[in-house]
């Protein structure tokens, strides 16, 4: 008798399930599909914007039309997707009855609050307990900003972009488009034309924001695009840590997300910007999912510091390069990233560090995890300008492969125009080894737990940069996103 005994490695893992895929049934105020000057005017008038902002939007719109006619949608990234029909998208979707921003949480549709509860957002009192001030952008409208009063006493402004336009027009006028002008790229132009809301933060000189500020973005309406705009200004010597989280319901059609984030760190200021991006990644067969085209950039003045930390587990497509223009002497730029792709997800993400000032310093730590049939590309640019004496960059770029149908790619550009610069580039590619898995399983961890431990351990250098609660969430997210990939 011969019996063939192998240990089944198809352990009982459920197929990668997206747990944020619920749809909230709230009445929605929709503008007709498609993009035109009229739509841009409609968005602007719905929000009661001043003439100068409408003008700016229209300029951006016309610029974008030119790009679109010239077929100038960027195509250099290592991503493939069907051509986007920009006339088949809703550019304005607001939950009904919120034309006026809610005065307090009592004015917010309870169903929406339920949604945020499902998302685990500590709104209401929990927010205060958790020390988090939350601005939640639901489709395109900012729903509720907590703890505004408390922050107000310190002179900190944390509100929706629309409110900021009304209440702090001088700040908006001064900084809007100053880091990412609408001419920057195709998606930045589109965003400038049709952005519907977003968050605004201003920290006055010398003030250290005592709590983490947080915005939660969610796309709800089917076929709608989301175009939010975030502007953060840390005045001289100020400090702020800002968190951004994103989810979207389960949809078989793709959704477009084209956001713009501008950070301005004036002399001696510090901005720490953390993102957990968990937009719907599409079905395991590659249907639907969010197309995430985001432009994020910071301007770092003298002795200032800008730090981007991102955990990217969602979206069918991620196209995103949070960057820092190190224009002030002694300024510091950091980029810490974990990007995980599973099933048919594609990510092309990285950073740009532009060294202009003397003694500027940048650090890049990129961790790409590829599973299933996913494709992950790190694309980075380090540029040392002629005046950047003694600039220093350290880049560490690691890829981890889970399974044998996925891909990892690294595309680093380095341009040095000053001989005093010092640059280091380290790169590695590894696989989760059978030895590692067996070792952990022999101690009692399931195959899934073992994978999770190996991957979070491997990502540790990035995850430890996140604020504590966010780090736990990130770790859980890596676990959930990997389901179905192991076995």
């Amino acid at each position, binding site marked *: 008798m011969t*019996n063939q*005994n192998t*240990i089944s490695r198809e352990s009982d893992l459920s197929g990668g399930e997206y747990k944020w895929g619920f749809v909230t049934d709230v009445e929605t105020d929709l503008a007709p599909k498609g993009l035109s000057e009229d739509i841009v005017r409609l968005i602007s008038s719905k929000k009661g914007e001043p003439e100068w902002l409408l003008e700016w939007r229209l300029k951006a719109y016309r610029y974008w039309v030119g790009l679109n006619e010239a077929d100038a949608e960027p195509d250099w990234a290592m991503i493939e997707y069907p051509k986007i029909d920009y006339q088949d998208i809703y550019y304005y979707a607001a939950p009904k009855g919120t034309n006026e921003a809610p005065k307090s949480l009592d004015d917010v549709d309870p169903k929406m609050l339920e949604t945020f509860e499902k998302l685990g957002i500590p709104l209401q009192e929990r927010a205060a307990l958790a020390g988090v001030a939350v601005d939640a952008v639901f489709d395109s409208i900012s729903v509720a900003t907590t703890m505004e009063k408390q922050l107000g006493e310190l002179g900190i402004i944390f509100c929706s972009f629309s409110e900021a336009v009304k209440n702090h027009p001088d700040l908006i006028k001064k900084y809007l488009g100053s880091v990412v002008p609408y001419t920057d790229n195709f998606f930045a132009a589109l965003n400038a034309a049709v952005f519907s809301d977003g968050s605004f933060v201003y920290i006055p000189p010398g003030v250290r924001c005592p709590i983490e500020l947080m915005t939660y973005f969610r796309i709800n309406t089917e076929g709608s695009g989301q175009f939010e705009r975030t502007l953060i200004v840390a005045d001289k010597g100020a400090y702020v840590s800002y968190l951004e989280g994103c989810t979207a319901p389960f949809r078989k059609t793709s959704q477009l997300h084209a956001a713009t984030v501008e950070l301005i760190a004036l002399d001696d200021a510090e901005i720490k910007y953390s993102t957990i991006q968990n937009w719907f990644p599409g079905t395991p067969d590659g249907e639907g999912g969010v197309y995430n085209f985001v432009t994020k950039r910071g301007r770092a003045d003298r002795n200032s510091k800008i730090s981007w930390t991102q955990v990217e587990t969602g979206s069918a497509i991620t196209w995103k390069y949070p960057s820092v223009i190190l224009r002030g002497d002694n300024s510091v730029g950091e980029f810490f990233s974990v990007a995980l792709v599973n099933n048919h997800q594609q990510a092309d993400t990285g950073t740009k560090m532009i060294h202009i000032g003397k003694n500027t310093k940048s650090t890049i730590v990129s961790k790409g995890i590829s599973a299933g049939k996913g494709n992950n590309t790190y694309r980075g640019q380090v540029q040392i300008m002629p005046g950047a004496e003694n600039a220093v960059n350290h880049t560490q770029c690691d890829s981890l492969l889970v399974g044998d149908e996925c891909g990892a790619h690294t595309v680093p550009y380095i341009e040095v125009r000053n001989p005093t610069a010092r640059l280091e580039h380290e790169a590695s590619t590894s696989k989760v080894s059978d030895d590692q898995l067996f070792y952990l*399983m*022999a*101690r009692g961890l*399931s195959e899934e737990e073992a994978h999770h431990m*190996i991957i979070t*351990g491997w990502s*540790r250098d990035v995850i430890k940069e996140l604020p504590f609660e966010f780090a736990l969430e990130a770790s859980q997210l890596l676990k959930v996103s990997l389901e179905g990939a192991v076995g």
Partner: protein
Amino acid sequence: MLEIKNLHTSVLDIDDSEILKGIDLSVGKGEIHAIMGPNGSGKSTLANVLMGRFDYVVTEGEITLDGESILDLRPDQRAHLGMFLAFQYPAEIPGVRPWQFLKAALDSKAEARGEEKMTVRNFSKLFDEKVGAVGINPTLVKRSLNEGFSGGEKKRNEMLQLEVLQPTLAILDETDSGLDVDALRIVAEGVNSMRSPGRSFIVVTHYQRLLNYITPDVVHILVNGKIVNTGGPELALEVEKDGYKKYLVTSEATA
């Protein structure tokens, strides 16, 4: 406790790769069995197969633990039943702290058995105590699991896990290799202090020297995938003196 009957094992997906060619072994509760043999005899394979390593196929035979077959169980399920393998070459896991790893291992076991998980406070206490007992440099456990550990440090770390997890059947796969005399003594003291009527050990070793410190109940000589001789502690001394030569000749003759 552990019964191995006519165990044949090959390497997964490789033809004609039979390594274990009919092993019979019976380990009773509270016993210490030493398995000795020359290089390439299948000692480590046996240790790994017992723990359920994926890349071996059991083509014939049976392994039971307390009367139940474990052949269809995954390594984690075997661990939950109280089995433990101290690795010859422990894997390096970047970014994972030994503390975190051991807590997760204990939690998984407790969960599988429907027992209550140990509190972080109690676990910390236990961990610190065992770190002291095993003589691991405390700075080591703040680093990544096995990463950059010396050979001896890795083995001590295996002993630390053994002490914390308190298995009922511990398999030590050449834990003595690469150890200096002091470390060897620590390993032996660990085993001796854990020796109890309810706990069995299988000590796989190439040399007799570990058996100077651990007195086995039974010694087996494994050559070319088969157990060719079984006896008491005196068998180990004989091997120390004469080597494996006489077994190699016999096994070639019968092959």
